[in-house]
């Protein structure tokens, strides 16, 4: 589904990603872990098409298409979803109207008709229960005055509504208490299928207890330095990121 | 700690401490203004012909102009015919060294805390001292000359570098730019000239000290700073005047030109005599200051601490013509008793990616009126221009006024302009907190005012910052409690 090859990216001339390789197949859940400043969020932003990031080398292919050729909205319509680490507050824009517009854009892209109001409401109800989000929140302006946890839940709710093929969860666990974490993870798990895939970016192993990944990668210094199964996360939690660094140094010296 | 003690001492002691008159032999021309006076000034200074022509042209235009009335200040009309336009310490012969300077004059500057004796100077500051508009001494000239830096009085510059003066004088503030600038252009008697050649970082602060001494005179000095490509200079200006019952006029012009990658930092501590507690006397300070960022990535930064003058009318400005150029304005203006200040800045964005920052702190006490007036203009051509302005006013007492008059004129869609202003007083709770910790109210106010002004004071060179802090405290003395 998604292939990242030798990806280099920089912001304001500073290279952050220094050759990332990653392949994600349909139905897979990959986790990316790594210390602060390793480039995790940069990877998420590059995947979503943020213009502030310059891709200087390498490629990203999504279902055979060159993703880097597409604007952010075109990627979204192709089925890429980014759950933001810091969702923006947009006063005056109601969540409902916003989502309906977004959904219809995506449907139009797929050659489908606009969804009618009743179907839309029904769909909303159903997806809301998935992430246990309060109707009151949906009626307010987008993310305005939401708590950290409410914003994250709203992200997952939007994901549920837009039904992406490939979703990037950028530190969705940060700022969540244990109950919220369970709800969010539960929502994600219900959306998992053989046809879609996820990239879960996190600093801690905790989230991966709830969203069990097929693969775990460690991103450090702008590169994936170690990959493994779900147990790698546990090992990391236990030994810390220094362990990876030490091991790498040892490898280099050997 | 000792610094704080100094401030406290100042707070509890005196009035305007620079208010004495020096007994120096003066040459003063009769009061009144006409073409002959302009010719006389030019002749006395043995100026080249072009300078006289320039002055006369300015004078003729000034005659047609009207005194501006838009500022938020009130005063009886100035009688321009009752002022003497030239007063100079009498020189008996050409001075060869500082030893030959009138000892009374040297004492004058010692009392001001400005030593002109190079040996005694703290290293790192070159001083041009201007008394009643005439430069009396410039220190460290030779050392600067080795680097190609020209730092001398305007009179000397006209004799020694007439081609430079001719090229740059009026290039930023045209002769008839406004009423007071036109007056200055016609009658300016001296001032400082400063030229930093390409690529030179001036190794010391350059400083001009202005003092009005004679009675019934106006002071009209003119400063011109030219920073060539890639050069840097930090320039300081200080000023004091005797306490006199009548009002005296000060109408100066400062022009700064910065070429590609040049940076000029201009700091002023303005401490002209503000008049007495009843509003009698004091200086009318009508000043035009403007910098032109002509080159790419050039930068001009104004910092001013305004504590003096009965009336201040002053808007140090930056014309941001070069792409990526930067303009800054940091100001603390304190008014007490019957002082009136209408001061601020203009940031004119013309080039692409130009940036400007305005930080203005106004403190009003007594029966004073303190106004911020600032213009931010983003021309159509100034793509990606950015401005941020913060104007805060602090009121000490219920008989004073604090006013904010920003003008924002924006014609570029890819620009961002933000202006914020607040007005407040020192909270009772804060005062109580300080009192409870053992500070009396005056100390507490001094502390709070310094904190309120910190962002601006931090921009001043060290020596000046200490002086400025003391000044703030003195200026506000007796305003609370």
């Amino acid at each position, binding site marked *: 589904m998604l292939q990242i090859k030798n990806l280099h990216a920089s912001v304001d001339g500073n290279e952050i990603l220094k050759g990332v390789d990653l392949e994600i197949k349909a139905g897979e859940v990959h986790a990316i872990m790594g210390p602060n400043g390793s480039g995790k969020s940069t990877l998420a932003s590059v995947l979503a098409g943020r213009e502030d990031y310059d891709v200087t080398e390498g490629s990203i292919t999504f279902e055979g298409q060159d993703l880097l050729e597409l604007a952010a909205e075109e990627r979204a319509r192709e089925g890429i979803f980014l759950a*933001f680490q810091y969702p*923006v507050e947009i006063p005056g*824009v109601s969540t409902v109207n916003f989502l309906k517009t977004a959904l219809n854009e995506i449907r139009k892209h797929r050659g489908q008709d606009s969804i009618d109001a009743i179907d839309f409401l029904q769909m909303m109800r159903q997806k809301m229960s998935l992430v246990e989000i309060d109707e009151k929140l949906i009626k307010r302006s987008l993310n305005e005055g939401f708590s950290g946890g409410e914003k994250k839940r709203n992200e997952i709710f939007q994901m549920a509504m837009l039904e992406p093929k490939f979703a990037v969860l950028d530190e969705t666990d940060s700022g969540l208490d244990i109950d919220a974490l369970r709800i969010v993870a539960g929502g994600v798990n219900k959306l998992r299928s053989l046809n879609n895939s996820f990239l879960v970016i996190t600093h801690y192993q905790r989230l991966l207890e709830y969203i069990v990944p097929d693969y775990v990668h460690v991103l450090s210094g702008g590169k994936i330095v170690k990959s493994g199964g779900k147990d790698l996360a546990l090992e990391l939690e236990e030994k810390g990121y220094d362990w990876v660094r030490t091991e790498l140094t040892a490898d280099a010296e050997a | 700690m000792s610094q704080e003690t100094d401030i406290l001492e100042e707070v509890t002691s005196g009035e305007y401490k620079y208010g004495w008159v020096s007994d120096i032999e003066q040459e003063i021309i009769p009061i009144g203004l006409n073409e002959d006076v302009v010719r006389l000034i030019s002749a006395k200074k043995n100026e080249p012909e072009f300078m006289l022509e320039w002055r006369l042209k300015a004078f003729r235009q000034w005659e047609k102009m009207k005194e501006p009335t838009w500022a938020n200040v009130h005063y009886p009309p100035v009688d321009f015919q009752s002022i003497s336009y030239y007063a100079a310490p009498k020189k008996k012969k050409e001075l060869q060294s500082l030893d030959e300077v009138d000892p009374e004059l040297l004492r004058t500057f010692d009392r001001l805390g400005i030593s002109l004796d190079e040996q005694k100077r703290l290293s790192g500051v070159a001083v041009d001292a201007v008394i009643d508009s005439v430069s009396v001494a410039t220190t460290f000239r030779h050392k600067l000359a080795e680097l190609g830096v020209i730092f001398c009085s305007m009179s000397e510059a006209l004799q020694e570098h007439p081609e430079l003066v001719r090229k740059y004088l009026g290039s930023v503030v045209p002769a008839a730019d406004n009423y007071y600038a036109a007056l200055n252009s016609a009658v300016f008697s001296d001032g400082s000239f400063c030229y930093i050649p390409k690529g030179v970082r001036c190794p010391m602060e350059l400083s001009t000290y202005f003092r009005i001494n004679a009675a019934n005179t106006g002071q009209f000095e003119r400063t011109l700073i030219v920073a060539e490509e890639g050069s840097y200079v930090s320039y300081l200006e200080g000023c004091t005047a005797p306490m006199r019952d009548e009002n005296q006029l000060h109408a100066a012009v400062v022009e700064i030109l910065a070429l590609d990658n040049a940076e000029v930092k201009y700091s002023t501590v303005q401490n002209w005599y503000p008049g007495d507690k009843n509003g009698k006397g004091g200086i009318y300070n009508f000043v035009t200051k403007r910098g032109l960022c002509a080159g790419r990535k050039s930068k001009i930064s104004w910092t001013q601490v305004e504590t003096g003058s009965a009336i201040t009318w002053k808007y140090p400005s930056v014309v941001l013509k070069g792409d990526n150029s930067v303009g800054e304005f940091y100001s603390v203006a304190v008014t007490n008793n019957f002082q009136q200040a209408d001061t601020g800045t203009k940031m004119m964005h013309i080039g692409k990616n130009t940036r400007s920052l305005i930080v203005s702190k106004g403190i009003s006490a007594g029966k004073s009126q303190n106004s911020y007036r600032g213009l931010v203009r983003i021309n159509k051509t100034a793509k990606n221009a950015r401005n941020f302005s913060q104007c805060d006013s602090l009121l000490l007492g219920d008989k004073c006024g604090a006013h904010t008059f920003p003008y924002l*004129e924006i014609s570029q*869609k890819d620009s961002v302009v933000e202006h914020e202003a607040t007005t407040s007083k020192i909270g009772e709770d804060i005062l109580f907190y300080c009192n409870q910790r053992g500070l009396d109210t005056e100390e507490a106010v001094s502390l709070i005012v310094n904190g309120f002004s910190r962002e601006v004071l931090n921009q001043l060179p060290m020596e000046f910052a200490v002086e400025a802090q003391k000044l703030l405290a003195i200026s506000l003395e007796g305003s609370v409690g």
Partner: protein
Amino acid sequence: MSASAPETDLTAKVVAAFKQYEQTLNGAAETPLHAIRRSALDQFVQLGFPTPRNEEWKYTNVAPITRRDYRLAAQPQATDINAEFVRSLVPAGLDADLLVFVDGWYKADLSSLSAQAGLEIHNLGASAPHGAQPAQQLAADTDGFVALNTALALDGAIITVRAGVELARPILLLYISDVQAGDAMSALRCVVHLEANAKAQFIELNAARGDGHSLQSRVAEMRVAQGARLDHIMLQNQAAQNYQHNYTRVDQERDSLYRNVVAALGGGFVRNDLSIALNGEGAHADMFGLSMLNDREFVDNHTLVDHRVPNCTSNELYKGIYDDRSVGVFNGKIIVRPDAQKTNAFQSNRNVLLSDGATINTKPQLEIFADDVKCSHGATSGQFDADALFYLRSRGLSTEAARTILMHAFAVEVLDQVPVEALRLHLEHQLSSSTSFDV
């Protein structure tokens, strides 16, 4: 103001119209009201139309709008404007008492009043009642437009809401210029008095019939007595050839509330002066404005809030979106008088420029003479938040759609302040149609 200014012609026309009116008086020329008018005319002749040299008109050049050859009638003119046309102007779903003025003259046959209890309406032309004179405290001495209105507004509405009465229906004042047969200028005056604890909603709508140029001058004097509440909404969505000048003077007494919302969605020239005096403790004033302009439209919102006594509050928010070569002006002044301690006054002006030909000139001002106050103002100009734009695009919205949705959100903050549901919907609809986006 030099006598050779280009607007001399219109000045002469105003004088001629006044003379013509005087001839119709037959002895009534000696009334106090007429004396006021005559002195206002003298004042107008002396002041002329304002020029940009006047600080309050620095960014607003009236010369182009005063050069036209307007028809200026000193008495009611026949018109074929009918009820159907009037209905087409009234916002859908708005249930209001309707007062219609054509070229400044009250048209009873086109108006519809439901005789609400406690509401008294007179038209100035037919029955200038007891004491209902154009007030004298207006800024006539500095502003030629106000003087002109005082001299020439021969008709208008005098509205009183009796103590304690809460009007069930809003009052809609419809000002129509009939410019089918050529350019026309008109002047009218509104005098509104809400007695103690009364509550009312006033809506003003400017319109024109025909393609000629119109210049409308409207001065309103509003008194909001103790505990009363007045909501005042101004709808301005005219074409390039329609010009208007509105001067609103509000006097508020103790614990009263006044709210002004002005939606300027179009017009060749719009100048709104809003001057509020807070005369009684506990009074609160709200001012909201939205300007959304394109082409060469011009809107100038001038506000003055005068905090004269302690413990009053004021809040203002003006927003503008400017496209093409449109120009917006905002000038907001807050004065806090020496005795007006414990004043809270806030003012905000936010602007978005959509085109390099567009301009915003803004002058937020504070004049503070009391120390125990909380006052602040802010003014910004910029683009829509880049993060918000990206967020919307990452959900599949095109850049265009994302911009539109943000523009709508920007505007809605002001429209939400309109206290009449039908009007709010009407405005949202106008907004959506002008931004071609359905939300």
